[in-house]
């Protein structure tokens, strides 16, 4: 155990735990946040070819919740909470984001539909490195398979940058798993059903989504946990359009 971790634990035992930022307890089974600060969270459709599995809806909801929680009041003084969305496909819809409860004034939107994926990864690295954002979303959905070949060790480098910052979370939206073991959390999302309201005239009522945790690399205490099904959790809700 590192001396720093030991010191943090000693201080926490004396009631100073609230001042210590660190990885959040992220398992839905524990009721924590699904996107841990200081790590990579990956969210993919359950099937690579599935268009409209609900990944963007989940990401927007999580982003809105993170901004509303505003942990900056305890940890970062007067720094305004903010979110960066690196949009690799130019598909981001501000109306949907506002409808999901996201405060658009706190959103930095980088539109890079024509930008190579390595450049977007570098941009995400700088955004993380700045320490100014609570969440950086790297949206690689809708990018072709040939483009999804990041430089070697890119995810490891991002993970190291997040580990140093500890305040920022990186959420990667990708058509298939990309981050490998660098991801602290990996979720897959499935659209189980489309909900239509047929009472008077047809209305799109929403969709039923199912989230599954594919693996979790470590828990809130910093110790490694075995990946896997022991951490499998489901999160369901019904969306209203």
């Amino acid at each position, binding site marked *: 155990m590192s001396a720093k971790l030991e010191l*943090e634990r000693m201080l926490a035992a004396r009631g100073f735990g609230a*001042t210590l*930022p660190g990885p959040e307890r992220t398992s839905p089974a524990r009721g924590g946040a699904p996107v841990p600060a200081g790590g990579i969270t990956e969210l993919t459709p359950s*099937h690579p070819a*599935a*268009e*409209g599995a*609900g990944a963007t*809806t989940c*990401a*927007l909801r999580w982003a*809105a919740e993170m901004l*509303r929680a*505003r942990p*900056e009041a305890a*940890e970062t*003084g*007067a*720094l*305004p*909470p*903010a979110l960066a969305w690196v949009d690799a496909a*130019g*598909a981001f819809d*501000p*109306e*949907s*984001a506002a*409808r*999901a*409860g996201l405060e*658009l*004034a*706190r959103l*930095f*939107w*980088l*539109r*890079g*539909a*024509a*930008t190579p994926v390595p*450049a977007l990864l*570098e*941009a995400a690295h*700088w955004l993380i490195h700045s320490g*100014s954002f609570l969440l950086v979303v790297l949206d690689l*959905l*809708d990018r072709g398979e040939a483009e999804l070949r990041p430089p070697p060790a890119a995810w490891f480098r991002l993970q190291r940058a997040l580990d140093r*910052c*500890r*305040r920022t979370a990186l959420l990667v939206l990708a058509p298939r798993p990309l981050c490998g073991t660098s991801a602290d959390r990996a979720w897959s999302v499935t659209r189980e059903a*489309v909900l239509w309201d047929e009472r008077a*005239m*047809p*209305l*799109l009522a929403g969709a039923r989504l199912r989230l599954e945790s594919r693996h979790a690399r470590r828990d809130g205490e910093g110790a490694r946990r075995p990946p896997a099904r022991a951490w499998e959790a489901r999160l369901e809700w019904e*969306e*209203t*359009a």
Partner: protein
Amino acid sequence: MNEFLAAWLPVFSLQAAARPAPPPAAPAAAIELDGPLRRIAAANHAARAAGVAAGLSLSQALAREPRLTAFPRDEAAEGELQARLLAAAGELSPRVEAVGDDAAVLDLTGLRRLFGPAEAIAARLLAMLAAAGLHAHAGLAAQPALALLGARSVGLAAQPATGAAACLHVPDCPAPALARLPPGGEAAFLAPLPVAFLAEIGALTPVPPEPLAELLELLGRWGVATLGDLAALPPCALRQRLGEAGLALRRLARGEAGGVLAPPPLPRDRRRRTLAFEPPLADGERLRQALAAELEALARELEREDRMVEAAELRLEREGAAAQVRARRFLTPTRSPRDLLAQLAPLAVAPAPLPPGARAGVVALALECRVASPRRLQPRLFAAAAPDPARWPKVLARVSELAGPAARAGSPQPLDSHRPGAFRLAAFQPPPAGAAAPAPAPAGLALRRYRPPRPVQVQRANDDELTLVGAKLQLPPRRGESGARQWLVTRAAGPWRADGQWWGTEPWDCEDWEIEVAPWRRAGEAGATSIRRLRHDRRSGVWQLIGYYD
């Protein structure tokens, strides 16, 4: 023991008016307009010796001294002169009080370890003022008022005191000089000085100006010409006749006056510097050097006050051309003279389009800076240092540059329009942390937009315009594909019609559909469907896929 150093600029108005040349030794005066008359505002010793005094009209002054050189009074230059005086004083002491426009008093308490004895500090101040082009005298004493009296008395000792009026004819010493009032010997030093000097030390006099003028007039009628005469008056009798004010003046004349420095004014949020060139500068390098010198002085001033430059504006006046204003806002506030010069020099030396007949020489350059306090960050033990929001623009600019020229970045702001999807990208400036969070809105399915929208052909299953169920959508083939893609609409909600701007140049009239589609050949398979938004432009009749719900 406290020590105070006073610096005084003799013939202040004339010094300012004659800049950048030094104060002339020949008869000279600064004149100001008083209605239609031009009156003498200040005159140097040679002019005063010929009978020229402040308040005379220019014609009266010329009648007394035909060789008199007149300079129009320049209040802007006077303000700049005072700013230079205070800046130089502020570099030596954190406690400085401006006395009038032409003098400053420094508290030297605790400065010995930094700069050496008081005489060394005084010599340093005089050298700094000389380097800035200011002609000054200094005085050292245990009290602020005494120090200023000492500075104003420089050169007087060489002239016998024959009376109050004669004593005011202080020769303008060609070189900076220092007068020290020795501890315990202040009364002896002040004794030969004229009583009228008490009106020359401004706010440091213990009596307000109007009663002071009356008292000095009364003392003059009594035959009290010097401070020594005043100090010799019996206190009881003086109090009976002049009251407490008389006693206060007597204490000052005896070198017993106390005094504290008034706090300096709050730092201003704008700094102005003006450079005038005679002859006009046509050489860009020389202009750059002049600007660099000004920025060095400004940086020292800002360092002393712990302020940073947020934005700067350069106003260039050229021969025969209108003034040009060039502004620069700094992404990161700075006070580094090197950074400031790197940003501002290209603005100053950039060629300007000139009208026919105009010359390129720069006559004047005015620099105005908007300054602010630097942001303080409190580091924490375990957390990474919180970033400075002032550096956000730099990070965001770097990220935008990384993303390439076609990429755009900013914060989306919905427009005040009913047009679907109308927004603009604004500069990213998140509200402060304390701002209230918006109430949670009902969540909905997120739309992923196609930019640009994808054209599609729609073949309805029937003639019913109110439904699309059963319609066939045909999309152009993707790159590398041979045939067109075909979808079957299995569910549809709509149409949602919207129109606007029919009165303007960009009218729009469309209807949107939310449709559930399945590939034509896999229409019956579970999980093969997707939800999309379809738009029909009613003006052109074109169908487009706007995006899909994800």
